[in-house]
């Protein structure tokens, strides 16, 4: 077995108006991997394909070495999926939904389940129809965690949650992964949460991977550069340098420190260059805007 919990190679899925990939993405064992991207980037499609919802046109997905098509059942025994979109209403009561899901997993942890019920303020007799949006998400998370999965895949788990509930959900997730034996793949628009929570991050846009790596390394690598020019020198985006804004002789740019763009600016007439550390959200907005401008 290699070091990756999820290994996606050359994944392609074609729709009439959208194509995912070719996409290569790797989630290391024990990592908390944040999959980020704008709406319609293909995040949910990637997750759907992992669970066999629809068939990829090319490429391969392996989870703990299991092929997502030929070894679907053993893969799903180890993986759990959480999303606010999951519909448990048909079971009527929370207790019945638990009974149904519990039947699939011999390793179901009743004590842990009871603890999560307390933490999430849920009860067996609660009607699922009357649960709030956040409570439904918590139920989804409870059903995923209590089976003690080796990998948790969360699709927008914090959508519609208030700040307290979000803290609660992330708290339980952190507890679940603290021994480093579990892997988490989380797709979210809450980039501040991802920055705090995820140790790896992958950014996709229009079905393609823009960047992937350790969160701290990625955030460290990019800087917001502000500089001035005299004598009408003009700059255009180039490798490692994305021009974000220009007002007269004052410039703002996204700068990739690995590419030597800083030195390049100094040697090409930029003056008073000041570099500011960016948040993941700033970086995301800058990269997505740059792609759109192209």
């Amino acid at each position, binding site marked *: 077995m290699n070091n990756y919990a999820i290994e996606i190679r050359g994944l392609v899925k074609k729709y009439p108006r959208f194509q995912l990939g070719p996409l290569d993405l790797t989630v290391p064992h024990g990592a908390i991997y944040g999959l980020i991207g704008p709406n319609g980037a293909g995040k949910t499609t990637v997750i*759907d394909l992992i669970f066999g919802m629809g068939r990829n046109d090319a490429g391969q997905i392996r989870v703990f070495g299991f092929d997502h098509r030929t070894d*679907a059942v053993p893969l*799903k025994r180890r993986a759990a999926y959480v999303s606010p979109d999951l519909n448990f209403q048909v079971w009527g009561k929370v207790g*019945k939904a638990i009974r*149904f899901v519990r039947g699939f997993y011999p390793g179901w942890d009743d004590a842990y389940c009871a603890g999560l019920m307390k933490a*999430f303020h849920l*009860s067996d*007799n609660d*009607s699922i*129809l009357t649960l709030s949006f956040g409570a439904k998400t918590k139920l989804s998370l409870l059903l995923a965690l209590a089976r003690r999965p080796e990998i948790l895949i969360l699709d927008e788990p914090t959508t519609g949650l208030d700040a307290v509930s979000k803290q609660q959900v992330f708290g339980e997730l952190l507890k679940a992964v603290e021994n480093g034996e579990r892997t988490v793949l989380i797709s979210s628009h809450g980039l501040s949460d991802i920055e705090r929570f995820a140790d790896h991050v992958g950014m996709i846009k229009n079905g393609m991977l823009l960047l992937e790596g350790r969160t701290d390394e990625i955030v460290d690598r990019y800087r917001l550069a502000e500089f001035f020019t005299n004598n009408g020198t003009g700059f255009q985006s180039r490798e490692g340098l994305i021009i974000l804004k220009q007002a007269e002789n004052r410039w703002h740019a996204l700068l990739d420190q690995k590419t030597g763009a800083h030195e390049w600016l100094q040697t090409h007439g930029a003056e008073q260059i000041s570099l500011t550390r960016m948040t993941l959200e700033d970086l995301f907005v800058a990269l997505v805007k740059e792609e759109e401008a192209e």
Partner: protein
Amino acid sequence: MNRLIFDYLRRWSLVLALVSMLEFGLGCLLACRPEDNFEFWGLLLAMWTGANLLSFDLKRGVAHAVAILPLTARQIGRSWWLATVAIPAIVLAALLYLGAGAFHHINPDKVIPAGRLAIVSLLNVAWLGTMFNCVSSTPVIHETGWIRMRSTFIGRLSAIMLLGGMLVCQNASKSPLKSIILLGVGAFLTVASWFRAERFALGRAGFRLTVPHYKCPRGRHSAPGGRGGIPFLISTNFVRTFLPLVAMVALMALIWSWSGQAIPRQQAIVLFASMGSFMSCFFIFFLQPMSVLQHLRFMRTLPVSAGELAAVMIAVAILPLIALGALAAGVAGLSLGTPVAITVSKSYMFILAPASLCVLFAVWRGAGAQACVLLLFTMFGFFLAPMCLQGLFHHQEIPFSLTGTIAAFCVLSALLLTRCALMHSSHAYRVQANPSGNLPWVAGR
């Protein structure tokens, strides 16, 4: 209000145009053969101009979308009432008379059966009002006591009226007793639907109207006993489906025996068995949407192979039909003799074919309009197919072996193709806007 009415009419214009042409044809037929019974076809056409169409919109979440517009719940409900009851009733009546008038114009020797046309037109109003109640008379979550009882009563009465109407409507325009009962109950339900129209927006928008009132302490949980997983899924669905089906078929038998049939006994038994099995299949897919279809996205993340999941889905649909068929055949055998039992069992065996194919179509196309059309074509096709096969083989009934072969072939094909659709199609996994609406009898309430 006008905008809502026009929006509805514009979106369903093709279906309404098709039904209008058929209604015009029905008017011609009534004028051409006034002695024949066309009431059942009138009912079917009325169904496809009324709130039945609106129910498809509701499944796609239209109630939630319009509830936020600057209109009161009463305005929304009454707009839809006008669009699905009043306007279709007027147009259908006009088309019936136009059709009859056109026929009379070509054949002046034929008399226009004005009285019969009037009763059929009035019956149309009754069906449209009843349909509206069927779709709208859902007890809203916060309703309790008398108000809830009233909603439940009107909902149940509408269902009985529609179900009973299908069985006794033949000859209704010629029988004063039937006409009085159908028109009386229909008039009551139509008037009630106007005054209760605002419930449409409140009951179907899917809002959580009250703060949940928890009756038990928070965090209470005890490890569930018994088996979970697939056996739990199948047994729960079986009970939820089988019991209402038994009640429905028993009610149909009561109405059928009360109303009496003008056709020969053997033909009446075959017709009743076909209608009973057809309505059971209709109930499973349209009135009690299969729960497994609603949470297919979640089911696909569980450790169940696509083949096993396909088998489970088909089993969930056909097991109640098999059990009901066995029960109905047993009762028929004991009370009417073995030949009747065989007729009934053949009918329920035959319906397994469309039931399994409906599962396939629902998975392949998801819970959208395409799937609805496919399901309806399949069901009505298989309802009419025995008549064609009987003509083809010059038998009064289809042989048992042929029925079994057709059913087995369709079930096996559906199993293989559903497995394929589960692996290849993405439609079924896309989240649908509250696919079952808030129907009172839907699982999970």
